[in-house]
């Protein structure tokens, strides 16, 4: 079965899976170069997790989420490029040689085919299992941020546990939202820190990223 809004699905040059920053950029660049592109995404609005719902949310909470988030609108705008079809709420569940890509929207499945396929399905942070990690109310830092971005819900009296820049970003956004975490438990040990010191010179070479962090 083919989606009704596709005139001829067999005549597609490229299928991109995932409408986050990478998928949107790949689909747009290809379409601007004249390729016929199908962009499949599981969410209702483009943006992935980084730019989650940015088209709708940038105006409402752009100040809280910061200029790096709002900048995502530049990418979502370009999805209107002719030749690019963005299919929303599409869960891709099979890829076969060809490439034949099967996906579902609601309870209906569809098949599209193209000689080129780009998987930009994104990432999830690596959780740190410890007793109690499946208790309701425990969630990933990404989940806490998705709640702020998409739904305007900021965790009250949270404890953030782990390491890495996302945790600090969530802490600063919760603080800006007026509900700072009770504690941020950094799990990086002193020896982790010492081991990573040898990368300092390399890190300084890309100082813009450091400043952003």
């Amino acid at each position, binding site marked *: 079965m083919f989606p009704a809004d596709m005139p001829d699905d067999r005549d597609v040059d490229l299928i991109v899976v995932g409408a986050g920053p990478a998928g949107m950029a790949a689909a747009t660049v290809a379409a601007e170069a004249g390729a016929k592109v199908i962009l499949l995404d599981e969410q209702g609005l483009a943006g992935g997790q980084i730019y989650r719902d940015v088209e709708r949310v940038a105006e409402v*909470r752009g100040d809280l989420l910061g200029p790096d988030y709002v900048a995502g609108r530049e990418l979502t705008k370009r999805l209107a490029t002719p030749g690019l079809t963005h299919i929303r709420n599409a869960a891709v569940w099979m890829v076969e040689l060809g490439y034949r890509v099967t996906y579902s929207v609601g309870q209906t499945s569809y098949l599209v085919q193209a000689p080129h396929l780009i998987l930009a399905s994104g990432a999830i942070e690596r959780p740190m299992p410890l007793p109690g990690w499946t208790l*309701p109310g425990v969630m990933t830092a990404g989940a806490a941020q998705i*709640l702020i971005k998409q*739904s*305007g819900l900021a965790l009250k009296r949270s404890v953030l546990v782990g390491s890495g820049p996302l945790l600090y970003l969530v802490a600063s956004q919760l603080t800006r939202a007026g509900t700072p975490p009770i504690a941020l438990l950094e799990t990086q040990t002193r020896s982790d820190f010492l081991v990573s010191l040898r990368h300092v010179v390399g890190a300084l070479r890309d100082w813009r990223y450091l400043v952003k962090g």
Partner: protein
Amino acid sequence: MKIDSRFLELTPSKGVEFDFDGQTVCAPDGANLAAALLAAGVSSLRWNAVSGSPRGAYCLMGACFECLVKIDGVSVRACQQTVKAGMLVTRLNHPQGGEHVSS
């Protein structure tokens, strides 16, 4: 029974009502279902079929399947669903005396 929300609502609004395990929950029209339930004070969205332990929304990006619920009889991830007026949401493996919902 009113439960203190564990969330600060940055732009509070209520619009539509839906049925959640026999109770009425009020949420903004078009809200994310998992988020709407969290805002309503529900944290347990299902009970593990083997151990019976409660589970809640964990990744909110469709990857972990911990927020599986039934909408009008079909199993779906709550975090991938949009609230619609009158929808019927039930929890899987609900034990006796589950959580109460505030709205």
